[in-house]
């Protein structure tokens, strides 16, 4: 096959992709009582997609990705409360705020090793948490930001108590941003990111301005994380310090580990798996669900994802 066709073949949609999205959009209709969790999954999936761009595609580890999630969330909530209640304009404001923060924070991840990046991103996350706590005249502090009322989506669709509008809103935003991200990772820009991930020294040696690319992708990922945060505060009508909490940054990393980093569906499938697991286990043992999640993760990492999800290979013996 000619090189051009071989390269372009990677862009084609697989048969299961439209099926997957149709099922996702049908879920709030088919399972009306579960629309709220569909909404939550879509939001977490978008957040994981964002982390995948920097972790899976560029190799930047982060334990503070919630900084951008929270920034987008608070910005959208404050905008709805004080300026105007339109969801889409609020979403744009949330994205813009997180983008600015991402551009500034990208200065901290350009140098150093994985370990220093873990520390620095963790630090930025903690700073944002403490700022939101201290600026209580603006954010409501530990009480959270109450009384966020959203207007109807596109001026027509009111957010209902069952979360159907919310679910479709979040799914639509997820789909649009997913398609953009998909386009980006298949572009020459996306290829330079993978080159940096695989071998930073060689990436420089073929003329790639590595620090500029790192800044760009970090800012882009911050924008997507901000969108996810904005969706959460808009669809729940509430913003609290929980948006910035460390467990969010950690959970989203676990989600990528479950789903697989370095392919865009990893974050989405990981989010589905993680949230369902959390939902099922916590309804069985509300107090100990983290134990089971922890156990699952240990098994996943020890056995390996490929083998764990292919049980028929467990007893086949070793092949060369």
């Amino acid at each position: 096959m000619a090189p051009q066709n071989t390269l372009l073949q990677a862009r084609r949609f697989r048969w299961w992709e439209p099926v997957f999205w149709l099922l996702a959009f049908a879920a709030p209709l088919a399972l009306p009582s579960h629309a709220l969790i569909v909404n939550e999954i879509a939001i977490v999936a978008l957040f994981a997609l964002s982390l995948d761009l920097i972790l899976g595609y560029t190799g930047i580890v982060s334990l503070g990705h919630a900084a951008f999630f929270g920034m987008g969330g608070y910005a959208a909530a404050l905008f709805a409360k004080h300026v105007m209640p339109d969801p889409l304009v609020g979403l744009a404001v949330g994205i813009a705020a997180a983008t600015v923060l991402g551009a500034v924070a990208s200065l901290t991840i350009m140098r150093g090793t994985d370990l220093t990046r873990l520390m620095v991103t963790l630090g930025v996350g903690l700073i944002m948490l403490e700022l939101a706590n201290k600026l209580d005249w603006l954010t409501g502090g530990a009480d959270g930001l109450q009384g966020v009322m959203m207007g109807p989506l596109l001026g027509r669709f009111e957010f209902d108590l069952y979360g159907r509008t919310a679910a479709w809103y979040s799914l639509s935003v997820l789909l649009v941003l997913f398609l953009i991200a998909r386009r980006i990772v298949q572009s020459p820009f996306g290829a330079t990111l993978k080159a940096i991930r695989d071998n930073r020294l060689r990436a420089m040696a073929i003329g790639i301005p590595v620090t500029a690319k790192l800044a760009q992708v970090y800012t882009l990922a911050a924008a997507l994380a901000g969108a996810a945060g904005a969706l959460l505060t808009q669809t729940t009508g509430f913003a609290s310090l929980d948006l910035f909490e460390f467990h969010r940054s950690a959970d989203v990393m676990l989600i990528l580990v479950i789903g697989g980093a370095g392919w865009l569906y990893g974050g989405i499938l990981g989010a589905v798996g993680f949230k369902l697991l959390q939902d099922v286990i916590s309804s069985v043992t509300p107090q100990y669900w983290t134990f089971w999640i922890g156990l699952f993760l240990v098994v996943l990492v020890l056995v390996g994802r490929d083998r764990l999800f292919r049980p028929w290979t467990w007893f086949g013996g070793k092949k060369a």
Partner: protein
Amino acid sequence: MSNNIVLSAQGLVKRFGGITATNNVTLNLHKGARHALIGPNGAGKTTLINLLTGVLEPTEGRITLEGQDITRLAPHQRVQRGMVRTFQINQLFDTLTPLETLALTVSQHQGLGGKWWQPLGARKAVTERCEQLLEQFHLTSVMAEETRVLAYGKRRLLEIAIALACEPRVLLLDEPVAGVPAGEREELLQTVAALPADVSVLLIEHDMDLVFSFANRMTVLVNGTVLTEGDPDTIANDPQVKAVYLGHGEDAHV
């Protein structure tokens, strides 16, 4: 004469704490040259390459590329100005295929590295150049396989193909045949011999067969300084050079 010099290092010094790895090295690479840099292990050849390419910053001295001072430029800026290197130890993109690797390198060179909306490989100019390079470096048959699974000889070829995909005017080859098994060696030697004539090449190599068949000028580096420079015949008969190499030879026989 001086107009003919494409790459010039003047009085380069590099100290690591108390150790002087490069001591007042002056080196001129002429246009279209096949210039070999030889010397025993620890002579400072790789340090010199790292200084030229910008991985290390010199303590003293100055580097010019086509008349312009590049001493303080970042590595990727020197590449954009036409000076490209290969590595003694393969530095490849393990999870990409050779085709993806070359497509990305060619795109970057053609100024498309920042394009984020069109797919990699959408431009005919990129894919046609990739096709040529794959052909030239005997990589067509493995173009869609992940780089990490390729045979060592193929990986070595890709190492050089990547450098050529940057369309260098100055090419620094750091031990291109190091570690290549005998069966895969011929392929590699041919491609090195077939490098475009207008590309000026600085070759670092231990393999004396390759050096003497390839180079038309040689510099001998010992203990971080230039011992001597000249054409291959002069170097081969130079008593100082013989002493350096034969000295090692005698040690090896003991």
